[in-house]
């Protein structure tokens, strides 16, 4: 039903029918929906998109957005217009770990550019790209509210603050050796390195 509204992305009906939240994710979604009056469950869209993104590989495909529309009983375009507005939703496939380096004023004053260059060199990718092994995507972000502990990067829900090259090395090594996807609920290594 939502094939037309997703623009350039191909819509795969077969894939669409295979998409379904796990029981655990569905329980979370129902809990979120319960926070709003019955006639206003569209309000649950932003938090539910986070759940969907974590559940289906770190990004929102047209099929996933269509599924979310069904779950919340709204139109697919209502999902797409929101997913495309907010920066935290990925509309293209990303690596298992999305590294978001803050680049705004206080972080810049404390060497954020050096951190970005260092990671670019280390992973042999540019900002916006994903490593060939699909492990890392490097992004830059606007102010993440970590100005007093700059420079910093976010991965999943974890903040890594007061970064040094050494901390970046340790972090990337750990992520790489574990090799799993980090989504918005993942808090491991949060400021512990």
């Amino acid at each position, binding site marked *: 039903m939502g094939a037309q509204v997703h623009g350039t992305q191909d819509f795969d009906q077969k894939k669409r029918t295979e998409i379904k939240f796990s029981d655990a994710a569905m329980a979370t979604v129902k809990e979120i929906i319960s*926070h709003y*009056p019955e006639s*206003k469950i*569209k*309000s*649950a*869209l*932003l*938090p539910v*998109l*986070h759940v969907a993104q974590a559940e289906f590989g770190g990004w929102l495909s047209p099929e996933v957005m269509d599924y979310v529309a069904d779950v*919340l009983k*709204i139109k697919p375009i*209502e999902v797409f*217009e*929101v997913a495309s*507005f*907010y*920066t*935290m*939703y990925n509309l293209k496939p990303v690596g298992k770990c999305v590294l978001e380096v803050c*680049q*705004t*004023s*206080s972080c*810049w*004053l*404390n*060497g954020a*550019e*050096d*951190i970005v260059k260092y990671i670019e060199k280390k992973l042999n990718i540019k900002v916006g790209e994903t490593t060939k092994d699909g492990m890392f995507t490097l992004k830059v*972000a*606007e*102010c*993440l*509210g*970590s*100005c*007093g*502990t*700059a*420079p910093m990067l*976010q991965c999943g*829900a*974890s*903040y890594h603050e*007061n970064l*040094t*090259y*050494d901390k970046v090395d340790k972090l990337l090594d750990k992520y790489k050796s574990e090799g799993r996807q980090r989504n*918005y*609920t993942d*808090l491991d290594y*949060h400021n512990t390195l």
Partner: protein
Amino acid sequence: MIHNDKVPGIATLEVYRAHGGYASVEKALKNMTPDQVTDEVKKSGLRGRGGAGFPTGLKWSFLAKPEGVPRYLVCNADESEPGTFKDRYLMEVIPHALIEGMITSSYALGAKVSYIYIRGEYFYVARIVENAIKEAYAAGWLGKNILGTDFSHDCYVQVGGGAYICGEETGLLESLEGKRGNPRIKPPFPAVAGLWGCPTVVNNVETIAAVCPIVMMGGEEYAKIGIGKSTGTKLISASGHINKPGTYEIELGIPVEEFIYSDEYCGGIRNGKKMKAVVAGGSSVPILPTELILKTAKGEPRLMTYESLADGGFQTGTMLGSGGFIVMDEDTSIVKNLFTFTRFYHHESCGQCSPCREGTGWMEKILKKFLNGTAVESDVELLWDIQSKIEGKTICPLGEAAAWPVAAAIRHFKQEFIDIAKSKKFVDVSHYNRLNKITA
């Protein structure tokens, strides 16, 4: 408000309660009418701590109260103004201070349901607040018939999706309704038609937390803290080239010089450098050079108050704003710093209004010319011209927020722009090797 921040376990209900937590809920629900609570807030002179500084009691008194229509309290925890991280600190360290404030404020406003809208990137903070809410439910501070009274209240957290514009209250409400965060045209104001068209009050995290001490000590006593119309305490998040970045609770009225140089607060400039400039209240307020941030144009010491920081208007003054205090040392390139601000606003413009959507992009492009050595002198005038055509011509204040830093940088540091344009080469000394110093 955060004087207990170093107490071990203060994030838990048990320890928070042992240190006098939730007393304002007890006092309000048992001994005061809702209107009496609002009156105390009015008397306290509390002003919105999110940035605009609008009197909170007045905002509350605008709330429409039609029969049979639900009213809502919404907490704005979408803290995204560059340089600001005080709300994060408060929620992370003493989450119950916010929840206590939500309950007491909701009682005053007659709101049966409230929402705390937290920016998506602060997901781990949202989790801390959610856990605190669970504790509060279990202990009977939330839910039905709180403390055996007929006041019932539910409080929920919603996480955003990453958009600065949702810090604007009507953009936030749109987002809370599951839409793009496009700010609404006002009037009607949220006090009349807010969340789902119902009367709504939107307050910043710190504002809501400040309601607790106001109820406890009484509005008049609270108003004795501070100077003049800047009453109470304010959380300041200090960052940049200072020895002790962090969140500080100050009594409004201390001198700016003391805040920057005293060991109790910022502890002076890092590496023995001299200070060049300060952004005093988050990225959108005008940047001031050292001489104007320490003293007003009249030569009086500049104080940490709404009035003193604004003394001299935008010609020689600035604003207290959100309390995001960014300090820059003598090696900092004002032009490059401005570029990071302008890139930010271009990225965060919601795109509804042409002057903001197009203007922020043009300003970013022109500033980029300064960085890659292709700027000409007349670009300074062009920048000035563009910013002047954004201010006051947009639905929401993001237009002003984007224009003011550009205007102030040109106003106070014009020569720097001209020098770069003349040299045809951008020499950025401000960030090279900084990190090596940190590592070493």
